[in-house]
């Protein structure tokens, strides 16, 4: 999965003296004020920078990378730029998630109903080891198409080698990709987050590498043609190309180490990346006979657009139980993941009733409502209340949702 970080121009109300020079200088009239604060309207700011030199205080030179731009109203109410939003420019290897990424993650996991702790048996994650100012440098060692050549959707499996650079990632974590150059307005491109598709010991075990699942974006959410900057950059990458990474990020959407834990996964499209990482982790440990099962609901438009379809179908049945749903398949009736969830209602409800079950939902925002509704229905049919169960599971670190 991929998400975008926006670079937002703000004014630091603790430093600003309301002298009005910025508003005076702002041609697109993006800067406004009330009795309290001067603020920049993200939608109107064209990044021309005319407001920067006249500012006597430096308050104007405030930038944040955010998942969702702060509204004018929110900014007008500030006493200070949100405290935990310090830019990751300090240089030192700070741990902890930068606020920009935290906001992105919060956005992605909003329908979870609040922050979830990681599973109790998850390994401890490293977060934020690398930032924009000092990224990790990875080399492309593999880039192959997962979807059938000629199909509309171009989804790729990209393997990055990190050489001697320490970049520890866990299944479910993501990395930031920095696209070189600047956008049409001369600003550096936003950081894009991609979930890691390989398990913790790498795509090729013990070679310090990781894999990403990247879909080439050719249209926006409304279907208008648009060329995704980062996705096209990654999909076009050749072996040997150098890619700058930030992160790793994510300290909640992690898999349990506890061998008996059962994983109930629901995903669409490239939301399969973390599922693939977790499944692969389990597959590699099958010889240990640790137990624990996986139930996967996976949706795509057509079989030829379903990433990892081939390898998935070859996985042993005692490891994973796979339900596929195709919404545009010429051979089968239109089906969504929630339809498969309902069809397997008995099993799903039984799994949700157990204390060793961990639920992971990842994919398009528009699938989320349907999936949660289906879960509520199957629980109701078994006589328990999903809304109560869901909250219990979230608080126990057993429900993780990332949608975009």
């Amino acid at each position: 999965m991929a998400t975008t970080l926006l670079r937002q121009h703000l004014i630091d109300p603790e430093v600003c003296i309301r002298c009005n020079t910025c508003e005076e200088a702002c041609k697109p009239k993006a800067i406004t004020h009330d009795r309290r604060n001067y603020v920049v309207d993200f939608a109107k700011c064209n990044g021309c920078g005319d407001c920067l030199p006249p500012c006597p205080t430096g308050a104007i030179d405030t930038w944040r990378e955010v998942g969702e731009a702060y509204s004018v109203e929110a900014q007008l109410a500030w006493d200070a730029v949100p405290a935990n939003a310090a830019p990751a420019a300090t240089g030192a290897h700070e741990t902890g998630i930068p606020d920009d990424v935290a906001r992105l993650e919060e956005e992605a996991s909003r329908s979870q109903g609040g922050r979830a702790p990681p599973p109790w048996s998850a390994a401890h994650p490293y977060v934020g080891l690398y930032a924009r100012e000092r990224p990790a440098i990875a080399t492309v060692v593999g880039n192959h198409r997962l979807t059938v050549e000629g199909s509309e959707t171009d989804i790729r499996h990209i393997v990055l080698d990190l050489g001697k650079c320490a970049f520890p990632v866990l299944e479910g974590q993501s990395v930031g990709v920095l696209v070189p150059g600047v956008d049409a307005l001369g600003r550096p491109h936003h950081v894009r987050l991609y979930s890691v598709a390989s398990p913790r010991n790498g795509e090729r075990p013990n070679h310090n590498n990781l894999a990403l699942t990247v879909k080439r974006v050719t249209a926006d959410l409304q279907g208008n043609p648009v060329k995704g900057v980062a996705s096209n950059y990654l999909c076009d990458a050749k072996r040997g190309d150098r890619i700058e990474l930030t992160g790793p990020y994510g300290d909640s959407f992690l898999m349990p180490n506890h061998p008996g834990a059962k994983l109930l996964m629901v995903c669409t499209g490239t939301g399969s990346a973390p599922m693939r990482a977790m499944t692969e982790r389990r597959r590699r440990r099958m010889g240990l006979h640790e137990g624990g099962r996986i139930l996967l609901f996976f949706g795509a438009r057509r079989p030829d657009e379903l990433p990892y379809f081939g390898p998935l179908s070859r996985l042993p049945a005692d490891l994973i139980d796979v339900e596929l749903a195709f919404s545009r398949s010429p051979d089968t009736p239109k089906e969504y993941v929630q339809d498969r969830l309902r069809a397997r209602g008995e099993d799903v409800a039984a799994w949700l009733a157990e204390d060793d079950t961990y639920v992971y939902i990842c994919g398009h925002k528009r699938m989320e409502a349907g999936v949660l509704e289906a879960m509520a229905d199957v629980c109701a049919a078994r006589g328990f209340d999903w809304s109560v169960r869901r909250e219990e599971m979230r608080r126990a670190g057993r429900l993780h949702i990332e949608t975009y």
Partner: protein
Amino acid sequence: MSIDYASKIPNNVDLGSNKTLQRALEHWQPRYLDWWREMGPEGSLAHEVYLRTAISVDPKGWAHFDYVKMPDYRWGIFLTPPEEGRTHAFGTHKGQPVWNEVPGEYRTHLRRVIVTQGDTEPASVEQQRQLGAICPSLYDLRNLYQVNVEEGRHLWAMVYLLHAYFGRDGREEADEMLQRRSGDADKPRILGAFNEKTPDWLSFFMFTFLTDRDGKYQLAALAESGFDPLARSTRFMLTEEAHHLFVGESGIGRILQRTAEVMKELRTDDPAALRAAGVIDLPTIQRYLNFHFSVTLDLYGSEVSSNASIFYTSGLKGRFDETKIADDHVLTGSHYDLSVVEGGKLVTQSENALLTLNERLRDDYIVDCQAGVDRWNRILEKGGAAQRLRLPHKGFHRKIGSFAKTFVSPEGEVLTEKTWNERASAWLPSDADHAFVQSLMGRVAEPGKYAHWIAPPSRGIDQKPESFEYVRFA
């Protein structure tokens, strides 16, 4: 004789095309430099100062930072580029094209406005000339010098208008600007507040926060002028003025931050204990605020003023943010509420809006000051101090206008002269206060070091680190 005047006097007014004007200003320039050497910052001529210089008026070019010896600073003439088709925004000429020449009937009024504004600029440089010797850091010293050179440039802006549009009278007035001296009994500066002393940095910060803010409001009112060269001059000056307000607001803010830190550390708000610990107690800061605020309010003139009315109706000086106000911009028949003392009580009186424009500008100014004081109070709040600063009532300690003969406390109670005098020492800085503040004023001039009584700034100038050498001494 081929002198490149354009480079001698940087300008964006095509000075080269008007030889007479060029020559006149060329004569004035050495006199200005003489004045700077005599009355500019003391002992500073050879210092290299990290200054912001305007090299053009577009946003990209006007904040150029580099080390400069102040006498070599490129004082020049910069006007905001003309606005195509600009018309009078107010007064009887509303809707007509703005003037690019002085209309004969307003010549005297306009000259007076420009001279009054221009006179304040060198005055404040003179008032501040000794502060360098007691600077709390190189950062602050640099800011002082930046303020000083920009006040100098503001003088240039007004002198240009006098030379370019007022002939011989204008040239004489320009010379007079260099003759008067702040605080001089024989040749004082025109306005009272500009003859007060600025003996210490607390006064300097109060002055830049409060009195330079009067400058902002006067300039903003002139930026609305129908005499376009004046409007364009003052518009560019406003951009520079903002730095001065910043110096004041952040200066006091850093003092408050430091005081709050020590209050927390010692768990006391006892002024004597805090003074012993080497920081400025909040009651002293409040008294300085009361003083500087009240003398600055006097700069706006009488509440009821026929001059103000004439300036407005004739299109010479507008209101603050004139073009953003939603009314008829003529004001005949409109009213404005005044506070006055009547029968020992404060009452509200409705007056003709045209006659009360001074008061309106003063009220707008007070709102802006209050916002700054609120931000200071947030620093106290954040520092854990329970005390707050407050602006005194606008009738407090006034020498000009209807409050001049009244005795109003900072809280707005109307008192008798006797009671007021008995309590005045709690409201205004005493000689002992001045002496104490003066006692803190040791010179700190090592990069990255700050006097004990003031916190370091949260950001450097031009994004420079805290330890940056803002001033290199000769």
